[in-house]
């Protein structure tokens, strides 16, 4: 399963020229507003006709300007979750959910409906109308509606952007479940790095209508050269670890490729694979192993690369076994410590975000 996408289109003031391949899983289109993210998904959905380009899902051509192929939107079997939900106000939640199913000529499938209803927690809402739903509930219905239309690809255009932090936290676990349980590739548009770190497997970063970086999320986020493209504020590496123990003092231990992290208890059984994000600004560096310090997460690392930024900051890539971590320190500190490639030192991690179930950002101890 893979999706090939190429879109070239000129708007007044900006030319979009984007091409990438999305493998199975969640591919995040990352970039600021105006970078061309929505143009790309709209072209894939058939809502915008680009001057040049093509989109192919597993050999099925959605459009190809070269061979003059253009499937109308209703024949593409694309599930589109819009930022603003766009539920049909004159239908109940149940009718909204089943709308696409009917047009896809899928057989009546009460079990399938019940599965999605359970997956997204919609049981209580079925007989209500969209006007009586909260923003988060609307978005969950919109996701269910798209899933139930039997799509070969799910497009999500900033599905959380219109929600406040609490509602986002309410929806993210559902999105994770869909990623893990529904076997549908997802193209996820977002300008939020924490969201992407939690959900995405592949990252395609756009700027001014071009692809500036693309690859597995772990690789791209740990690349110090990519920091300028992703934004210094969003710099932070994404690692995968395994819950190795829950300690009686309410701490959980997560094993990385080398060493372990200690976090406040997370709700995941031992052996579960979890994804964590360590922001570059939450990592301190020390040449000697800090002694008599409250921080528990002190990792022995090797400096791989030091990248000078434009400002007072320096981005340092660290190796922890096979994992890569980014640290952001001042140039003065970097010079003072004599940071250079190959130097062994200690990383003091102040804060870690864990993605899995209902675990949100939690401070490390």
């Amino acid at each position, binding site marked *: 399963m893979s999706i090939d996408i190429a879109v070239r289109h000129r708007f007044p003031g900006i030319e979009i020229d984007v091409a990438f391949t999305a493998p199975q899983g969640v591919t995040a289109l990352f970039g600021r507003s105006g970078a061309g993210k929505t143009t790309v998904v709209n072209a894939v*959905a*058939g*809502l915008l006709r680009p001057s040049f380009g093509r989109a192919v899902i597993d050999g099925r051509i959605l459009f190809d300007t070269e061979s003059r192929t253009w499937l*109308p*939107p*209703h*024949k*593409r*079997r*694309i*599930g*589109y979750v*819009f930022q*603003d939900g*766009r539920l*049909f*106000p*004159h239908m109940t939640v149940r009718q909204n959910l089943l*709308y*696409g199913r009917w*047009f*896809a000529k899928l057989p009546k499938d009460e079990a399938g409906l019940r599965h999605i209803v359970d997956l997204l927690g919609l049981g209580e809402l079925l007989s209500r*109308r*969209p*006007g009586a739903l909260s923003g988060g509930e609307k978005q969950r219905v919109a996701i269910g*509606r*798209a899933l139930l*239309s039997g799509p070969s690809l799910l497009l999500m255009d900033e599905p959380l952007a219109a929600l406040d932090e609490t509602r986002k936290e309410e929806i993210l676990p559902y999105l994770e479940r869909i990623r893990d349980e529904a076997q549908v590739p997802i193209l996820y548009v977002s300008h939020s790095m924490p969201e992407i770190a939690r959900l995405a497997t592949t990252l395609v970063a756009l700027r001014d209508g071009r692809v500036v970086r693309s690859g597995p999320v772990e690789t791209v986020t740990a690349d110090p050269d990519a920091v300028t493209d992703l934004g210094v504020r969003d710099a932070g590496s994404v690692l995968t670890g395994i819950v190795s123990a829950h300690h009686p003092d309410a701490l959980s231990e997560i094993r990385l490729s080398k060493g372990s992290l200690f976090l406040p208890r997370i709700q995941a059984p031992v052996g579960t694979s979890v994804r964590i994000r360590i922001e570059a600004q939450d990592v301190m560096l020390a040449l000697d192993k800090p002694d008599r310090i409250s921080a528990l997460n002190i990792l022995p690392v090797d400096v791989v690369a030091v990248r000078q930024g434009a400002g007072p900051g320096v981005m340092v890539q660290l190796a922890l076994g096979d994992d890569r971590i980014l640290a952001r320190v001042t140039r003065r500190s970097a010079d003072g410590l004599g940071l250079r490639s190959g130097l062994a030192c200690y990383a003091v991690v102040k804060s870690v975000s864990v993605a899995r179930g209902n675990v949100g950002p939690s401070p490390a101890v």
Partner: protein
Amino acid sequence: MILDWLTPEEWQAVALSLRVSFWATVFSLPPGIAVAYLLARCEFPGKQILNGIVHLPLILPPVVTGYLLLLTMGTQGPVGGVLKDLFGLVFAFRWTGAALAAAVMAFPLMVRAIRLSIELVDPKLELAGATLGAGRLWVFATVTLPLILPGILVGAILAFAKAMGEFGATITFVSNIPGQTQTLPSAIYAFLQVPGGEGSALRLVAVSVGIAMGALLLSEIAARSVSKRIGRA
């Protein structure tokens, strides 16, 4: 009792007017919705010309519209002649002609009301329908149409009321034949022309006011209940 209150001649005019207005409204609804949709949602060459033609009866003197109808739709006219030869359909000096005149005169009002309600439907909802597998016609039938029902209702009532009051074009096109083309306004006019007709005229005026008020109230109630049913209230 209303039958007793009105003379048979007066009653005839009221019944004819109701019949003419009813059919005028019913037959203009499908083209009215189609034209409103074209004007609200589609870009095509000649859109402004279509818009102009639809609105022409609103700005032309009704007598002119009636005369134009007589020229084109009369038995000697280019369209009327063909219709008569092919389908045996005759408009001139028949109640059907009164209905046609009323429909033409009421059409702009109906189209305006429906067009406004279509423009209020978020096109993004229609796009969402398309991504869920519904073709253009299905999107219209399942998303747009239910959402513009209140507008259609208002358009229909407006058209009906306008048809009830149509005078100039009707009398020019189909004249003022009692029992055939003498609608309520023509009857009032005719009664006012003969000595001692004021009583009849006044009774018809009362009926006309009653029907207009009734239609307005009905549309208000219906629009509100439809709005509630489609979750817009």
